[in-house]
Structure formats: C-alpha cells, structure tokens
C-alpha cells in the first residue's frame, strides 16, 4: 500500500490545484492524508477547507492539530488508512461471497474469524509512506515537531512484520522548475531520519499541488507499476542512487 502524508499549515498559492493533484494520486492507487499543523491562531477558513478537500480527493483523512499532537496524529492516520483500505477490500469480498454489506452484518463468531484475517493483513501488508512537508516560511517553528513526528512514525513502522518504508520530501524547492526536494529516499531506519531540514532556506510560496504531483511521479518511478490490489513492492536500487544524487544538488 502506498500513502502520501502531507503536512502543511495553510493554503497553496502556486500552480496546479492540490485537490486535483490528490485526485490524480488516488487514481494511481496512492492514498493522500493531510495533517494541518497550527500552533497560534487558526489555520483560516480557506486553509481548513482546502486541507479537508485534498484528503477527500485523495481518498484519505485529514486532521488539524497543534505541533504537540502531530506525532500521534500522523501515526493514527497512517494506521487508520491501512485498516480502512483492508476493510474496504474485505467488505467487497463479503458482498460478493455472502451478499452482506460489511463485517458488522456477520454474526459475532464469524466476525471474529474475518477480523483475525484482517488484522493479519494489516500487520503484514507492505507499506510505503511518502511524507511531503510544507517548508514555507510560516512552517519554520514547527519543523522540529515535524521531524520528530517522522522519526516516531518510522519507529512504529519498523516494528511491523510487513515491509515498511518512508521517504521524505519538502517544498518549495530551490530551483525554478523544482517544486519539491527529496530529503530522504525510501528507508526503514528511524536513525536515518535526523536533522533533515537543518539547511532548508525558507521561502514564501506554497506550491502544494505541483509538489504532490512530483511525489506521485517519484512513487511511480520507484515502486514500479502501481495497482490498487498490489501487496508487494519491488524497490529499484538504481533509481534510488540517482535520486540521492539529485538530493545533494538541491540541499546545500
């Protein structure tokens, strides 16, 4: 399963609509979740509405939280998305096989059996989460919390039985045609997620949509053909090396 987790604090203002970008991601089998981080004041009506809509378009969930709550929110969203997609798949099977709408329609003893299988899938299914971080100027004081949340998520994913990995991107990029920059390629090692954003130059624009699309491209390139039912990933070593070089070019 593939997920993009967008962490942002406000409305996009450059390029393609992030709602359309999220819808495209979902069409390619990638679920988009959004965490809106707000410490002082409010995120604004416009920002809040956009965050909710990006998640809806991306088949995911959204939540607006303070940076203190970010770690647990990120984990809860990741886990709920896995559980949700498995539930969906299982409910579909149940409809076809038994003509019932969902697990709840089964008598408790049967339900117990089905849930056992679902939990087994949740624990063993392979998972790739690309984190896309809004690093526009207003996010600067929150980046420590973001980094901590990413490290914490990686730690939890490491404990899963199934293969799990994360990659980290931030936007805006430094060059004119790069909307986002990769900070870490696919990794399952929490220790590698340290001081990611130390050298970021904060800029004003928020090209959320274009950045999302760039991450979708990355996932396509590194995860091969994406199918909704695909449960195994094949990482491509060559592409990974290439992208790491790209990184050193951008983050100076």
């Amino acid at each position, binding site marked *: 399963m593939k997920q993009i987790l967008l962490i942002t604090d406000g409305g996009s203002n450059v390029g393609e609509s992030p709602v359309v970008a999220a819808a495209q991601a979902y069409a390619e089998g990638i679920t988009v979740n959004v965490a809106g981080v707000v410490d002082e004041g409010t995120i604004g009506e416009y920002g809040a509405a956009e965050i909710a809509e990006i998640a809806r378009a991306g088949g995911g969930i959204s939540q607006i939280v303070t940076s203190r709550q970010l770690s*647990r929110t990120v984990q809860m969203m990741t*886990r709920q998305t896995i559980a949700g997609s498995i539930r969906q798949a299982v409910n579909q099977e149940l409809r076809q096989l038994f003509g019932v709408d969902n*697990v709840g329609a089964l008598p408790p003893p049967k339900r117990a059996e089905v*849930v056992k299988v679902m939990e087994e899938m949740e624990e063993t299914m392979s998972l790739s989460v690309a984190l896309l971080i809004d690093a526009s100027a207003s996010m600067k004081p929150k980046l420590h919390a973001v980094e901590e949340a990413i490290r914490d998520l990686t730690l*939890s994913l*490491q*404990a899963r039985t199934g293969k799990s990995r994360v990659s980290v991107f931030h936007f805006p990029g430094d060059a004119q045609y790069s909307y986002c920059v990769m900070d870490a390629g696919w990794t399952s090692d929490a220790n590698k997620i340290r001081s990611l954003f130390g050298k970021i130059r904060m800029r004003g624009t928020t090209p959320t949509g274009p950045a999302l699309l760039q991450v979708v491209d990355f996932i396509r390139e590194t995860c091969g053909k994406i199918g909704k039912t695909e449960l195994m990933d094949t990482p491509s070593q060559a592409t990974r090396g290439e992208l790491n070089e790209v990184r050193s070019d951008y983050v100076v």
Partner: protein
Amino acid sequence: MRCGVTTSSDRQPLPRGTEIRGKWNGRLYRLERLLGLGSNGQVYLASSDNRINYAVKLGLETAELQGEANILASLDQSEKGRQSFLVDVDDVVLEGKTVPFYVMRYVPGSPVKDYLRQNGTHWLGVIGYRLLERLTQLHDAGWVFGDIKSDNVLVGEYGRVELVDYGGASAIGRSVRQFTEIYDRGYWSAGSRTADPAYDHFAVALLWLHALDGKRLIQLTRTLLPQNRHPRELMKLVRSHSRLLPLEAWMEKALTGQFESTKDASRQWRESVRISQKPKTEGDRVPGWMVGLLGVAIAISTSVAAIWLFD
C-alpha cells in the same frame, strides 16, 4: 499503533439505567455508570440479572472492537484456569444505529497512582511484585500488555493488582498495538516498538516514576529536546528521589532492557524491596544497652529530684 487519540470523547455518555439488549445473543444489560473513555469507545459498569459485575465496552468501529474481543478470547484460551475475561460479544441498536459492544468481567480497584497516594508508598513493594507476577503469566502465554499506565493497573484491597484494557495487548514479536507516549520505550530512544517482555518492563519502570515523581517526569518531557530523550535522563530522576533511590539497580535494568525474563525482573524486584526495608547499617539502630542506660539515668535523676524536693 494506537496511542491515545480520543475520537469518541465528544460523544455524550449514555444515561444511567439505559438498557441494551444484544441483537444476536439476546442478553440484557443495564448501564450503571461510565467507567472510562477509550480511544475507540466507552466503557460502562453494567448489571445483568441484577448482578453488577460487568464492564461493557461500546465501540464505534466493528472490526476494531472485534479485534479487542479476539485478544480477550485468545487470552482466555492461553491462560486456562482463571475466570474468563470475555463474557459476550454482540450489537445493540441505539437510536436507529447499530453499535457493536463486548462484555467483560468487571474489575474493581483504583488506579495504582491514586492507590499509592491514598494508602502510602510503603505499598509499592507488594504492588510491584504482584504486577510483575501477573506480567510473568501473560508473557509466558505469549502476550505483551503494551499499554501499561496508571489507569490500566488497578489495585484492590491489600495491594491486589489487576490489569485492565487487554484490548491493547500484542502477541510477542508483533508491533505494539497501543501505548501511551511517556511510557513508551521508543519515545525515550530506548528500543523498538516490537512487542517483547522488555517493552513491558520499561513501562513498569515509567509507571513507578510517574506514580511517585509525576511532576518532575512531566516537566522532563516538556523541557527535554527529542534527541536528548534517553534512559539516563530518567535515571537522574530515580537517583534524586528518596523512595526510588533504593530501587536504582532495578530501575536501571528495566529502563535498559537487561532482565533475562519477567520472572527474573520479579525476583530482583523482591530482593531490592527487601533490602530497602532493612535498616541500612547497624549504626542506624539504637542498641539496647543505650536505651537501658537512658532509663537508668532518668530513674536516678527523678529519684534525686524527689529526695531533694521532699527533703
């Protein structure tokens, strides 16, 4: 991976006396009062057939609730010889909505933090021993409790310990299903979130820190930078607390995952507590002859005074 995100707290608790009848099994329960709000449901004290000894958990998500009930059922399977935890699993229709629920045996008692505050910290030894003995059984059966915290460790009369909320338990080797941030080994950079007995040992050590020195512990979590979270910071608290200092060696082993087994942790706990109960050196005690001498001195001085007065 559930970590205390409350999604159901905004829901109003059901009024006392609400009756719920299971759709499948037909048993009737009368809700007496709300016991607690979990991350995924509400737990009520309930009676059935006029006996008040059930805890009913009403959930939001069928699969999630069934997952918890499955754990209780597996525990009942793997720990034969005790009373069953799981009593019933069913659905009830409330205001037109189908709500899943399961029923457990009710466990009376107060959270360990409150118990120690009300009854004194000299109960720590017994409670700690009982808790580790319970965890030994659980670990031997192949399970890790995971979400050890004051609210989940209930103490009844004379320091009898019962764990509650087994819904967060994890099979050894799997990822920890449910934890509380400040009790979490991963949070303190002291290891993984894979369920193993040492995960619980770590949380038990945090439980004592939280119960006896909660203010400073919370203060520490607020001020420490994430990269500095480490067992050594916790050991600083242990060494500067008079009640925890005698348990220093045990705490250090628990925080750094050095017990061979939970049995070993339990044995060493008992030893540490026994040592702390004995006077430190001979010099601390007043020898008998000194007490005698004092008595004699008082007797002599009073008789001298009496003689002088009556003279």
